[in-house]
């Protein structure tokens, strides 16, 4: 490989995208590695973002497309970092490109193949509430807009191959190992949802109308499984009363994680407002412990939700949810800690806001790179106050949620910060070379 100045960015969510665009924008080469078939991350799954109520995909898509079109950025999607060696200024990286069984140079993203694929799979993008085929793009605005064959579910009927006019299907495709030479590495692997099935008192996984927030977000999204119509998946009815539970698995010394996931109070408020927009007669209750309104515009957002949208906030974390197996309706028990009364409430839908935790896969990545994780699985900062973006490995930086709980604006700012640090490493290397 040429020894041009390059940076490896691991993770194609908003943080990875921002870091890549900053670096590419100043003339540096970027390899953006993403393990799923498309970049976009969690933001692509959101309907709207708080507190501005921007359409998430609308503000994200231009950045995704810029990543795709930018001459300095090489997207390596459906890929994983396997090996990292060397040191700051001179890392050798091996990236495994998993076989999509599609020739990316030929695929036009037309979608003809998927129309003929007989296999239906619950799609990850819709949190398994919606359906895709075994040959698929994760969502319509995927970048790159290239199809992927899910080897696990594909039955090799080859209908896709027969119908593809671009002759892009290649069942002989092998995994490819790509060797890269980079000066710095940025880790931006984001988060996943804590498994709340463990909290059996809430019935997630057993009761059809108990959902987690990201599932609910997909129901609200125009691009989601119900086309953005707010319905219960169980019976197609429009809910008239919805309860949000905060802190499910967060702030816990047992059965969860000890930290505060920092975005849930406001994103629940956002989803609540969306409910009222979709179905004005639907009552919405948010059950909380401490309302986290510390971010810019958060308090005003919540005040609007209360005053203008009539969303009701109850200071209580419910003890349990019971299902009426005939109707699928739910009864929840809570102690209203302000009224000092223990009572029950009947609702049509319960939305749990689970703890957002660093991805399990980060452990693997951490050992590949030699990074330390803190007790909660976040990448450990070299100095939590003065070098939050640096890690224990010089030349490797981290940003976004995988560094610590934060929202989109903080992830974006920190991603630019990681780009700055990476640029410093390169500048240092350049000045060394000059001498």
């Amino acid at each position, binding site marked *: 490989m040429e020894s041009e100045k390059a940076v490896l960015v691991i993770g194609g969510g908003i943080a990875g995208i921002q870091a890549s665009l900053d670096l590419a924008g100043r003339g540096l080469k970027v390899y953006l590695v993403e393990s799923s078939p498309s970049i976009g991350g969690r933001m692509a799954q959101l309907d709207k973002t708080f507190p501005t109520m921007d359409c998430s995909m609308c503000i994200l898509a231009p950045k995704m497309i810029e990543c795709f079109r930018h001459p300095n950025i090489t997207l390596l999607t459906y890929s994983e970092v396997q090996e990292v060696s060397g040191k700051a200024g001179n890392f050798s990286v091996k990236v495994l490109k998993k076989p999509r069984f599609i020739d990316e140079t030929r695929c036009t993203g037309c979608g003809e193949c998927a129309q003929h694929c007989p296999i239906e799979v619950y799609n990850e993008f819709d949190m398994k509430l919606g359906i895709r085929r075994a040959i698929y793009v994760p969502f319509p605005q995927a970048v790159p807009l290239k199809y992927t064959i899910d080897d696990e579910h594909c039955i090799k009927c080859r209908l896709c191959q027969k119908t593809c006019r671009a002759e892009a299907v290649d069942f002989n495709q092998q995994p490819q190992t790509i060797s890269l030479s980079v000066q710095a590495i940025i880790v931006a692997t984001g988060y996943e949802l804590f498994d709340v099935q463990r*909290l*059996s*008192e809430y019935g997630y996984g057993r009761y059809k109308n108990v959902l987690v927030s990201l599932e609910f977000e997909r129901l609200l999204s125009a691009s989601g499984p119900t086309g953005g119509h707010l319905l219960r998946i169980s019976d197609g009815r429009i809910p008239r009363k919805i309860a949000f539970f905060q*802190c499910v*698995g967060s*702030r*816990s*010394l*047992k*059965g*969860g994680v000890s930290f505060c996931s920092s975005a849930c109070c406001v994103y629940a408020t956002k989803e609540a407002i969306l409910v009222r927009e979709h179905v004005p007669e639907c009552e919405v209750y948010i059950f909380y*412990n*401490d309302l986290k309104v510390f971010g810019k515009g958060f308090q005003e957002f919540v005040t609007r939700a209360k005053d203008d949208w009539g969303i009701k906030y109850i*200071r*209580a*974390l*419910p*003890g*349990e949810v*019971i299902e009426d197996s005939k109707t699928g309706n739910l009864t929840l*028990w*809570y*102690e*209203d*800690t302000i009224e*000092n*009364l*223990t009572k*029950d409430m009947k609702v049509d839908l319960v939305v749990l806001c689970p703890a957002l935790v660093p991805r399990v896969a980060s452990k693997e990545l951490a050992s590949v790179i030699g990074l330390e994780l803190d007790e909660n699985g976040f990448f450990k900062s070299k100095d939590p106050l003065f070098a939050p973006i640096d890690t224990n490995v010089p030349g490797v930086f981290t940003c976004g949620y995988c560094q610590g709980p934060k929202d989109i604006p903080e992830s974006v700012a920190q991603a630019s910060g990681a780009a700055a640090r990476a640029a410093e490493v390169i500048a240092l290397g350049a000045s060394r070379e000059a001498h």
Partner: protein
Amino acid sequence: METEPRIVAFLCNWCSYAGADVAGMSRISYPPNVRAMRVMCSGRVDPSFVIRAFETGADGVLVAGCHPGDCHYVSGNLKAEKRMETTRKLLKLLGLGSERLRLEWISTSEGAKFAEVVRDFTESIRKMGPNPLRTEVDAKASANTNTKEVISKALRKTNVQYCLECGKCSSSCPIAKVNEAYSPRRTVERFLLSSEDRALSGTDLWTCLTCFLCTQRCPSDVRYPEFVRACRGIASKEVMEEICAHKGIPLALSRIMINPKIKQERMGWLPEGAEVSRKGDFLYFVGCLPYFDVYFEDFNLEIMKIAQSVVKILNKVGIKPAILNNEKCCGHDLLWTGDLENFEKLARINVAEIKETGATKIVTACPECYRTLKKDYVELLGNMDFEVLHISELLSKLIDEGKIKFETELARKVVYHDSCRLGRHMGVYEPPRKVIASLPGTELVEMKRNRENAICCGVNAWLSCNKYSKEVQIDRLIEAKTTGADLLVTTCPKCQIHWKCVTSEKLPVDASEVTMNMRDLSVLVAEAMNLA
């Protein structure tokens, strides 16, 4: 040196008290060892008066009433007869001797009879010797405790200090749901604010069932029942006495057992042909079953069948268990009512006696004994040389090893109830289910609230048995009944007792909604093995 017998007498107002008056008026002498109390009717004499008297060192207790048919209150004296019969049995079990309690019918005019009875009774007591409990210190010995220190330590140890006031506990607690005034969260908050006086002098601390449902769900890992337990040690005992069911008799019995001079007579239940020994590798810890059997005999629960079934099963698989013939109460109820000093005494005695048998494995059919022996003794005294198993764990293992043969098809639809101590406290959920599922012809169904979400049988350590606990109990029984099962199986004798108690009373619902056949797991297994 011979000590003079101390006799406490309960004399009914209309007959026996008057009779004693006449003895005095007639100048008839009798030994001065009796101290008499007037009650309106001999039927007023509560077994707890008698037990307390003995616990405090009385050598004998005399209860005297009107002759049958003459009772001023129609049949109070007949009720006294029944009660004293039960009490006598308890005394016998304790090894105190049933003769220390005497019931006599003495009429107004029978002054001479009164004197004669006193003379006779005093003599026989003198022959029996003093009550072994006589020199005991006050049962509720309370050392000078620094309340603030106890609370501060407990706040830390049980994580109460980390409470986030979320209310999950109160909205999980079965009692809080029906008792508006009760909120574990509020109680915690009072302690955190150092305004604990209210909490220590109120009923809140004694309302907790210690069922651990709140602990199960608390995100801050607050172990509220353990906190409550620590505070009960320094809380107002007057309040406790007011709300303790059955006048605290079971607790008094446990305390009595502490005295080393007490030599119980508690082996009468052993079935014929049973093979047990004094020493052995395997010990069966029976628990307070013999006492429950006597005290709750009206419930017809056949409580001793539990112990008998265990022994029969063990024998059948080739185990000859050691049984302590002077086994003391494990101390569970004393621990959970805050009597830590006496709990420790019981613990040390039991551990010493178990050591003497050489046992390395203990099996028990009572979840409370199971928890206490396996967990609380270790916390108090350090690691033990023995392993503790619940009978369900042992049976599950034996079934796996093919050592158990089931001869009889039971053809029952069984619903299993997780008792708090076996379930949430100790995490034993699957072994009992496995055992039930292995019984031929048995279908196992589950209640909606099962395993870690199971609801307590409503009473713990005999405290706070009131209308709220009844509501919880009836709710639970309805839940069991609506599974369609025809048999409710538990592994806890107390659960059975408490449920039987509530269904024997006047019910707010139709009896058919709650009445269920109940069986202890060991008894069921013995039936299936054709050992009954």
